[in-house]
């Protein structure tokens, strides 16, 4: 546990000292969402209708953009091998790196989301559920993404490849995330969708560290 906390702190301080890196993800998120009113036109009713979907898709893409660096820098400078040799199980290492990744990308996205929801003319009933759904959904995105990030280590064209591997696996989170928010706005039941999002989170928390660690092991062989 102590090693876990140490590893998270190490990754966080590395991210903060590089400054703009985690900010970049949020900036991308904002710009991607802002493109939509320009693309589909500024009618409030149209924007309100697509707001939850656009915000979720943009969140998916921005979470994915930062994934490539999850293990890449440690792989290149060799610290990943040291981490693999340490007494900490590789599964826990993966979990620690995912935690740090979520704090530096998932959390800023959640903070920025309500502002974007206002820009997208979303009905105010949806705000709270949007935040709750993102809180439940973004950790799953980081967890599933870690598997993809581990698999592409040392490959050619890693970034593009990563999106091809990870995006199809993100679809369930997107579907339930959007339908929870749409349900809240339309006055329907939305608890079930939130519970399923929570279920995805717990399921991926249990399974992806194993797959991610297996991916890292074969990369380090």
């Amino acid at each position, binding site marked *: 546990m102590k090693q876990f906390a140490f590893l998270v702190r190490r990754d966080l301080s590395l991210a903060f000292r590089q400054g703009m890196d985690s900010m970049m993800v949020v900036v991308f998120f904002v710009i991607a969402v802002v493109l939509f009113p320009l693309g589909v036109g500024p009618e409030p009713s149209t924007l309100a209708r697509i707001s939850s979907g656009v915000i979720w898709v943009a969140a998916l893409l921005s979470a994915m953009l930062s994934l490539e660096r999850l293990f890449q820098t440690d792989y290149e400078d060799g610290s990943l091998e040291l981490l693999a040799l340490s007494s900490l199980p590789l599964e826990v290492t993966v979990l620690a790196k995912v935690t740090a990744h979520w704090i530096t990308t998932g959390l800023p996205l959640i903070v920025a989301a309500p502002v974007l929801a206002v820009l997208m003319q979303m009905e105010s009933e949806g705000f709270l559920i949007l935040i709750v759904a993102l809180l439940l959904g973004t950790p799953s995105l980081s967890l599933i993404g870690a*598997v*993809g990030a581990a*698999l*592409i280590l*040392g*490959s*050619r*064209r*890693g970034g593009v*490849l990563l999106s*091809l*591997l990870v*995006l*199809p*696996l993100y*679809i*369930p989170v997107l*579907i*339930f995330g959007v*339908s929870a928010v749409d349900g809240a706005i339309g006055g329907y039941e939305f608890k079930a969708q939130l519970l*399923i999002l929570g279920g*995805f989170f717990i399921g991926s928390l249990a*399974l*992806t560290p194993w*797959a991610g660690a*297996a*991916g890292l092991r*074969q*990369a380090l*062989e």
Partner: protein
Amino acid sequence: MADLHRFANPTRFLKLAGLIQPWALAVFLISATVGLYMAFFTAPADYQQGESARIMYVHVPASWMSMFCYTVMAVASAVSLIWKHPLADVSARATAPIGAAFTFLALATGSLWGKPMWGTWWVWDARLTSVLVLLFLHIGYMALQGAFDDRVRAAKASAILALVGFVNVPIIKFSVDWWNTLHQPASVVKMSGSSIHPSMLWPLLIMAIAFKAYYVWVLLVRMRQELVANKVRILRLKQVHGG
């Protein structure tokens, strides 16, 4: 396990594959001829859909094969990761493009069928969407295979991906089903085994056999080709090091 490893020897496998291959081809040619003849001439046209329902005899077996190929890939990947069976990995790699082709065929024929029946090429219906995602998974697998210079790494990485994708396939299927019922009521043609008349069921089953035999045939061709390519590479290396 001992039986499984008897065929781990590529030479023995090549011999066996050489024996099976012409039979698979023969079964494919015969059943495809019979199946297509029955599909076009003996099977009745659907009373509602008319002649266009005949595309079913290609569409349904192709969809079955798309799921089957992904399952084969996942099982072969598990075998290659757990037991390091050398042929498992070759067969998974050989299956991927065939599976992708079947998935694409299922989507394309479905779309051709959808135009006269539903009045549109594409509907964001649960089944269509989940098959589309299956196509993406096949393509992702092939892309990962091709992204490494080291073939052992490529095999391992894509085996892990195939397994992760396999866990996800039911989740995707179920989430898409759910999403669809929320937004638009399903308008899919339902086909349960009991409700289909024998005159249509028989050509369908024969076509399914034809597709499976075709798969076995192409799989063996691809696997033999890869093993031979391996041999050639080893011989070349020997030549370089020897001379």
